[in-house]
């Protein structure tokens, strides 16, 4: 199970959990599983998220792989000027 | 809008006197065109004065002063040897108006008649004791420069009247002047405070002085108190301190986007002190003073 770390202000949408464990092999599956487990996270996920999987930033790629032992951090979708 | 190109001031005055709507005179145009562009002014009549013979000339008067045409741009004043020698403070005031490009067009008369309390060329003219010739439907009259501005954007000129020349008095011996302004950048800003000092020495002692402050009141201030603070002195530390205090006392500024009231008062004193020193050094001559 990949361990998905929620930033502090997201935790209230996941019953206060800091880390949610999900079964997923891709970023897309991971996000879908998160939303299924905690529907209140839906708006945040729909607003656009980037993730860091084992330290590497995945800005916007649902197909990026997630391993069974992966540490995943959710990030705000980033862009720039 | 009607665009007029009279070839005499009498014609210009006649057109102006007969105008019924919004009227503007055009010399360098660096204020009028900005106002038109911003939609602040939509003239019905625009009178271009540059077709009048002589308006682009600087000529020496019989008594050794200088008569400056109303369409002489800053870049010509800045390159005029006689003016730069006699009235460097007047020239540097004009040279600070806008960019090199603006210098190619902007004029003393326009800067004066725009009526801005922050106009960079006006304190120097007032400190110099310059006179303005005003032509109207009834003829011409001469008035001191300080009699023209009446407050932000306003002048004392009557309907149909137009400034037809500006005359600087003869510089005479042992005189010096200077204009300094404070702006946040090095160029391109409107003065937050401006100060011009013109003085004359007898030996090391100041015997005449005029101190003009810009951007610290609705019109440029000619401060008698500031002048008296240095007349009779050799501009020692006590005199410059008294001058600064007098200038601070004379300043009656407001707070706005360009500076606070407190800041303007402080800087009026600083600039008066610095400008007086440069004017003093100039009056002493290049061999003795440090030219700034």
């Amino acid at each position, binding site marked *: 199970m990949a361990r998905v770390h929620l930033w502090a*202000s997201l935790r209230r949408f996941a019953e206060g959990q800091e880390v949610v464990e999900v079964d997923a092999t891709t970023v897309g599956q991971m996000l879908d599983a998160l939303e299924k487990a905690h529907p209140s996270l839906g708006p945040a996920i729909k607003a656009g998220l980037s993730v860091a999987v084992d330290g*590497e930033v995945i800005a916007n790629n649902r197909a990026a792989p997630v391993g069974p032992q992966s540490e995943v951090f959710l990030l705000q979708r980033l862009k*720039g000027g | 809008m009607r665009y007029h190109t009279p070839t005499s001031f009498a014609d210009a005055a006649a057109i102006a006197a007969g105008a019924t709507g919004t009227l503007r005179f055009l010399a360098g145009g660096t204020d009028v065109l900005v106002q038109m562009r911003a939609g602040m002014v939509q003239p019905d009549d625009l009178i271009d004065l540059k077709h009048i013979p002589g308006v682009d000339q600087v000529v020496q008067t019989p008594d050794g002063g200088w008569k400056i045409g109303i369409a002489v741009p800053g870049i010509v004043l800045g390159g005029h040897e006689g003016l730069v020698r006699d009235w460097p403070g007047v020239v540097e005031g004009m040279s600070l108006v806008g960019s090199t490009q603006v210098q190619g067009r902007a004029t003393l008369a326009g800067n004066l008649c725009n009526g801005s309390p922050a106009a960079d060329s006006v304190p120097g003219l007032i400190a110099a004791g310059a006179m303005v010739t005003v032509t109207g439907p009834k003829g011409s009259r001469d008035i001191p420069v300080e009699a023209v501005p009446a407050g932000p954007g306003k002048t004392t000129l009557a309907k149909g009247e137009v400034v037809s020349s500006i005359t600087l008095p003869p510089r005479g011996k042992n005189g010096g002047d200077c204009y300094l302004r404070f702006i946040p950048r090095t*160029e391109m*800003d*409107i003065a937050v405070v401006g100060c011009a000092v013109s003085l004359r020495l007898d030996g090391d002692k100041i015997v005449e002085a005029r101190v003009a402050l810009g951007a610290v009141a609705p019109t440029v201030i000619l401060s008698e108190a500031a002048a008296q603070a240095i007349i009779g002195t050799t501009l020692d530390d006590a005199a410059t301190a008294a001058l600064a205090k007098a200038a601070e006392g004379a300043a009656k500024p407001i707070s706005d986007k*360009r500076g606070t009231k407190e800041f303007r008062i402080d800087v009026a004193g600083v600039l008066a002190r610095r400008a007086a020193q440069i004017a003093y050094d100039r009056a002493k001559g290049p061999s003795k003073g440090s030219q700034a």
Partner: protein
Amino acid sequence: MARDDVKTGYKLIGTRPNRPDGLDKVTGRARYGADFSLPGMLHAAVVRSPHAHARIVKIDASKALALDGVKAVVTRADLPTGLTGEDLNLQDNTLAGDRALYDGHAVAAVAATSALLAQDAARLIEVTYEVLPHVTDVDAAMAPGAPVIREGVADYSVPEGMHGNVARYMEFGHGDVEAGFAAADIVREHTYKTEATHQGYIEPHACVGQMGEDGRGEMWVCTQGHWYIRRMSAAVLGIDAANLRVTPSEIGGGFGGKTTIFMEPLSLALSRKAGGRPVKLVMSRSEVLRATGPTASASMDVKLGMKKDGTITAGQVYFRMQGGAFPGMSPIGEALPCAFACYDIAALKHEAVEVIANRPKAAAYRAPGSPMAAFAVESLVDEMCRELKLDPIEVRLKNGATNGSKSSYGPVYNVIGLKETLEAAKDHPNYAIPLGPNQGRGVASGFWFNHGGETSVSLAVGEDGTATVMIGTPDIGGSRASIGLMVAETLGIPYEDVRVNVVETGALGVNEPTHGSRATFASGKAAVEAARQAIAEMCRRAAADWGIDAEAVEWKDGAAHPAGPNAGKHPPMTIGEIGSKMGSTGGPISGHHEVTAEGVGASFGTHVVDVEVDPETGRTTVLRYLVVQDAGTAIHPAYVEGQYQGGAAQGIGWALNEEYVYGADGRLQNPVFLDYRIPVASDLPMIDTVIIEVPNPGHPYGVRGVGETGITPPLPAVASAIAGATGARIRSLPCSPPKVLAAIKAAKG
């Protein structure tokens, strides 16, 4: 042309050839937004609200329409209804609905046979307003009793009980912050403020739009991203994106401000109403400053714990930012992760709110959020360094992030160059120059994530062995030259044989704008992949000609070579030979690559500035300035230096004199370059640069984006230098002379 240094073995990368668009740009031939015209074209003008907040009671255009030559007027009633989310925000900003939300908000637009006539007509459109209470300051907007500007603006993230103007909320961190503060020798806490600034690109927004009754349209526009213009304009007008073809002009600067729409759909709406005649719409400078997207203003609390040896034990920030009257526009989501990105600190807490205020809809501005965050955090680090008499570079080296550090916002840094920039700054001669009276030195580091994004690039081999590259990221600062160098390097052909064109929306898949420092990274990466595809095809063509396996052909120096034991002896076949006969060997040869580019390398920089402050007027003169930044690999070093210098100049402007000044009436007081004071040539010294090259493993040539980090350190570095010169710390930008003089006087007591 020789490479600046030879360590990489590249032939072209690292050289400084002339940019392909240089000739057009020095002769006046380059066509920018307002330079395009079409037969029968009309000119448009926009009516804007003079009020910060007002109900629009009535719009009467009858007098305008009665003028000869006035062809169309559009108001919100002409736009479709039913939009939601950001599409609705874009529409609301394009033309106000029932309320004008800021000074300058567009209310109506008119098209006429000349620009002067359109302006006359705009003045004749009578709008009746009912003025409503307004608020423009970020702290005032959160104060009890502040008028709630838009009911229900808060999104999912905002907890119960916050002020009605709070639109978004964010919190994250790690470690035990309280324990960290308890372990510190000193704990300091201050509030810092930055005012809104504008990107200040010299080219005002401009476009020509044409749309017929069938809803098909075309647009020529200056933009950082024409696919964004297409999607947003189509949404606002309720048409399909495919019916709109958008061609980018040359662009006269953007810095983030041209990544979105402000008035572009109006040209299409007016055109459709005027029987399909093309409509040109060009903003004035005042319109740009009042009604395009400046950056956010910010109020920021920072708390840091430090040991006497300089170890930072814990950090905490609470940022409040307003991004105008529309939600989602302040960069809190970027500012927070940037706040401590340069550091490896055991315990951190980040918290931020976005607040709505009666100001224009903010847009991105170069490293959005990072300069403000750096001003707050780097200023406090500097204050504590001075208090503990520690060298600011040593303290940053001690606490700085390095390869493998877990970043303050979650991911682990792979290969980064922060410490290299700090070491180079420490060793630079500027850092050892003795300071005179009233002079001070400031140091700060800065960070930007960098960005990959949606990218589509094509490449075609010419019959003469040249290559044409089609990219979708408008070239603002020389990216065509950089991409041309990378493609030429990959193909092994002269730089002059590669032509890079920025093409319209019909020619490629969707491209994100030139933003996030991504053009040279992402379009460059895709262009290299496209070139490799073309190389593979050229190797196949050569192999077929030679009658050997394609695997037995290798590409080097612009030609196919037989390679390996069974390839046989064949003279190399050049790209020119392959190109000249490609029609008879299988047809055109091209390459194409599209990707949402990943693998960006984070960007770090360190700046050192020396200033002198006039103690009697508070005016600051920048004496010397040093930018040290990691470029990964500098493809075209001159344009890398240009990005460093330009970023520094903008940051210096932000630090010293640039600010949005609002009056009590909520109107912008300084919507002209006379009073919105960007640095002029005589304000600045030469800007020294050191390019650090720690190659990014995520790019074939090691590129890191270089555009954005450079604006970040100047804000705190300049303020810290002023503190060094005067003993007075300015915690509220800009460090304008009145503020500095007041602080000097206060410090003297």
